[in-house]
Structures are given as structure tokens and as C-alpha cells.
């Protein structure tokens, strides 16, 4: 009885929060759906059709798609490399001081969203796909570094210890005792992040970091809605394809 009362109170609080949100934002849906603005919006929506499918634009779209894929792939690869380096520190292999500092760094890298990194990198490296690549690499290094470190901490220490006891150097023991145990997991994490990053790379262009996003932003700013529509369709196709492919791979590889 008491529990259901408290649940009811919480529900009431949620409803109040929702009402307060609408009130705070002063969303004017009435004017949004007035005949005047409705006609305007329908007009705008109509201008997106039919999508532009001229050969020249399609080949540009293809370039943009490749660029997006390249941004995500190179960014993820850089992140996997630096993530692996940092994970050694973050797993406490080189002392507790390095461990604490490295965890702080990884957390900071991870908590800044990709789009903010991209906006910063556009300042540092200029407009274009390189800024997007760096943005993906920075955020993903934070994510992968932490995941890699967790994998390192959870892997059994016996093989490396056995190698050490048999006289192998620390590096050799790590390479042949520890690494083979964590590599499959590292690879799985990297592929999973790559999948996410493909989706992210498609929208990083909104702040000028290359790829399909930049094309969408530019065409919309120039009021070329039919070209923008084909960019949106290309993004949609890419996302669906990546989804299907990763689902298929996951089912096959278990």
C-alpha cells in the first residue's frame, strides 16, 4: 500500500515535470498548425520531392559516402591504436599514479561528445574531413581505452606469469601471454564502435567536418531541397545497410 502510494507520487511528479517542460518552452503548437504555417510547411516539405538523381550529383554523393566511411574507419583505427596504448596505463600496468591520470584523461575524452570535438577540431585543423577524423578519434579513444583496460584487467594472468617465470622479458610475456587473450575482445569492441562511428560521421559534417553531413548542411543552406533529399536518402541507405550487415555478421559469428 505504502509502496503504491509512493509510486503514485512519483508518477505525479513525472506528469508535473512534463507539464512544466511544455510550459517552460512555451511551445506554440497552435500557430504551428494554423492553416497559414501549415501550408508553408507542406510547401517546404513538397520542395524535397522528387530527389535529385542526376548522374553528376549521384557521383558526388558516392564520393561523400566514401568520405564518411573513410572518416569513421580511420578515426576508429586511430582510436583503437591510442586506446590500446592508454589502456596499458589505465589498467595499472605502469603504476598507480599513471593509472589515475590516464583514467582521468580517458573520462575527459569520452565525456565530450563527438560533435563538440568536431567543432573544436574545425578550429584546429580547418574545415574538411580531417577535422571529423580527429573528432571521432578523440572521443572513441576515450571509449575504447576504458573498454580495453577493462578487458586487460579481466584477462587471466596465468599465461603471462608462466612466461615470466620461464625467463621471458616483460614485453614478451605481455605479447605472447596477455595479448592473445584480449585481442578477440578488443577487436569486437573496435568493430562495434566503428558501426556507431559510421552513423556519427554522417552527421559530423554539420559543423563543417566533411562527409555526407557537410553536403546536407550546404545544400539545405542553399535551398537546394531536392539535392538535400538525395543526401538524406543516401544516409538512410548507409545506416540501414550497416545495420543489416552488422546484424548478419553478429548472427554468423555468434
Amino acid at each position, binding site marked *: 500500500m505504502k509502496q503504491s502510494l509512493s509510486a503514485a507520487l512519483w508518477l505525479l511528479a513525472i506528469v508535473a515535470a*512534463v507539464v512544466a517542460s511544455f510550459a517552460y*518552452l512555451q*511551445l506554440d503548437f497552435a500557430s504551428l498548425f494554423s492553416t497559414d504555417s501549415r501550408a508553408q510547411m507542406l510547401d*517546404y516539405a513538397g520542395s524535397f520531392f522528387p530527389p535529385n538523381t542526376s548522374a553528376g550529383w549521384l557521383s558526388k554523393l558516392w564520393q561523400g559516402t566514401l568520405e564518411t566511411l573513410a572518416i569513421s574507419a580511420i578515426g576508429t583505427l586511430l582510436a583503437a591504436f591510442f586506446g590500446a596504448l592508454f589502456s596499458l596505463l589505465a589498467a595499472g600496468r605502469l603504476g598507480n599514479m599513471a593509472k589515475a591520470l590516464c583514467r582521468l584523461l580517458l573520462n575527459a575524452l569520452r565525456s565530450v561528445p563527438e560533435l563538440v570535438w568536431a567543432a573544436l577540431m574545425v578550429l584546429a585543423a580547418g574545415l574538411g574531413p580531417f577535422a*571529423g577524423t580527429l573528432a571521432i578519434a578523440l572521443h572513441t579513444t576515450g571509449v575504447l581505452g576504458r573498454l580495453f583496460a577493462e578487458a586487460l584487467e579481466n584477462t587471466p594472468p596465468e599465461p603471462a606469469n608462466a612466461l615470466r617465470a620461464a625467463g621471458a622479458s616483460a614485453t614478451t610475456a605481455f605479447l605472447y601471454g596477455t595479448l592473445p587473450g584480449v585481442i578477440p575482445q578488443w577487436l569486437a569492441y573496435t568493430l562495434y564502435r566503428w558501426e556507431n562511428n559510421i552513423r556519427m560521421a554522417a552527421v559530423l559534417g*554539420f559543423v563543417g567536418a566533411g562527409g555526407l553531413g557537410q553536403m546536407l548542411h550546404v545544400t539545405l543552406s542553399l535551398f537546394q531541397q531536392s539535392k538535400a533529399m538525395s543526401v538524406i536518402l543516401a544516409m*538512410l541507405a548507409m545506416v*540501414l545497410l550497416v545495420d543489416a550487415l552488422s546484424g548478419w555478421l553478429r548472427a554468423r559469428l555468434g
Partner: protein
Amino acid sequence: MPVTATRAHWHDPAATPRALLTLALLLVLWPGLQLTEFRPQILFNAQNREVMGRFLAGFWPPDTSAEFLLMLGRATLETLAMATAGLALALLLAIPLSLIATRTLSISALFSGRPSRTGRLLRYPVRFVLIVLRSIPEIVWALLFVRAVGLGPTAGVLAIAITYSGMLGKVYAEIYESVDPQPARALLQSGSSRLAAFLYGVLPNAAQELTSYTLYRWECAVRASVIMGFVGAGGLGQMIDLSMRMFAGGEVVSILLTFLLLVLLADQISQQLRKRLA
């Protein structure tokens, strides 16, 4: 053991294939480096270094003037309100769509074991709509709505409503299908309406999972509404964008710290609610 034998053991038999694999990977990646205009030296050229140096130098101390903090507080509330209002609208759309999309409430499936053709004809288009709604990233919707309804939080709310209705609708339909179907079937067979069968047969078993997934999505919506400001949809994101354009490093740091606090706060709120409700 003779010395010659140990010498041979030092050589890793898998070294050559590994080296070849690495080489092949590098060859595949080469066009990628070209496409991304991968030129790290750009970061260190004099002009870019000066711009970035000036910007970074402004990072400390964070801006804590009363006026700015007031603006920050307002933008934070706006971000939270956008996420909450957007999710509430998404629910309005997601619940009916998920009820149509789910197979659990199919009456024809009761008798023949699988849904009838008309049922499927209705269900598949709805599923397709849900896929399209959630596969276009929310920030793309935001960009479109900013142009349709103007700058400000309205565009963000609509963008969240659309993307999240797709996500929630799909997952809700799956949750209905994952709970024990017996109660709903019994109700349907004894002649109750579909809505009644859902309310009394499915909902009691699914409520916990539905609540916890919805709260998780609310957390995601908070994060998304920060990001969406970058295309002009209000809230914290719009502030970061403006401050960056003005190279106001101190402001950027204050906003980023606020963002971190907000994400932590959203995490705590949803954890507490999950404990109380689910």
C-alpha cells in the same frame, strides 16, 4: 637442451603471415587516408597553432560571472525541458504505433497460428515507418525542422519526438512479444477486446521493462538535446556553438562542465526513478 634448438624457438612461426596481413590492411587503408585528407602537420602550422593557442589560453578560468551563469541555468533548464517534452510527444506516437506493429494482439493468429494477410499488410508498413523514423539521426530532423519552424527549442522537441517515437515504438512492440503470451491469448479467446487484452494480459508483465527502457531513452534524449543545439535548436548546444564562434574559451569550458553535470544528474534521476517505479 641443445643451444641450436632454443635459438629456433625464439622465432615466432606466425610472424610472416601477421606482417603480410598488416601490410594488406595498410594498402586497403591508403585510399582512406587520401579521402580524409589526413595531414597531421596541418595541426602544427603557424596559423592554426595561433588560433588554437589563443582559444585554449582563454579556456582558463571558466566564465563564472553571474550574468553568464544565469544564462547557463536557463539553457540547462531548456535542454532538460526539450528532452522531457520531446519524449512525451514521442510516447503519444509510439504507443499506438507499437500496438499496431506487435504480433501479440493478432486475433487471426489465435486460430491459424500465424497472422492473416490483412493483418500483415497493416503491420509491415507500420514497422517500416518506425524503421525510417529512427534510422534518420535526430540531428538531421532538427536541421530540417529549424528550417521549417525557425530557430529555437520547438525544432529540437519535434526532432526528438520523431526519432524517439521510432525507437520506442519498435522496442515496445518487441517487449510485448517477449512477455508470456498466455494471459492475452486467454482474454482474446474469451472475447475481450484487443485493448482490454493488452491492458490486462500484456501490460502487467511488460510494465517494468517498458518503464526502464523509457527512462533509459530519456537519458539519451537529454544528451541528444544538448547536441541538437549545434544546428540552432536551442539549449546548451546553441550556447556552445555561439561561444565557439566568438572564441570565448572560458564560456566554452563552463558550458562543457555544465553539460557533464547535466548528464550525471540525468543518470541519477533515471536511476532513482527506476528504483521507485520499476
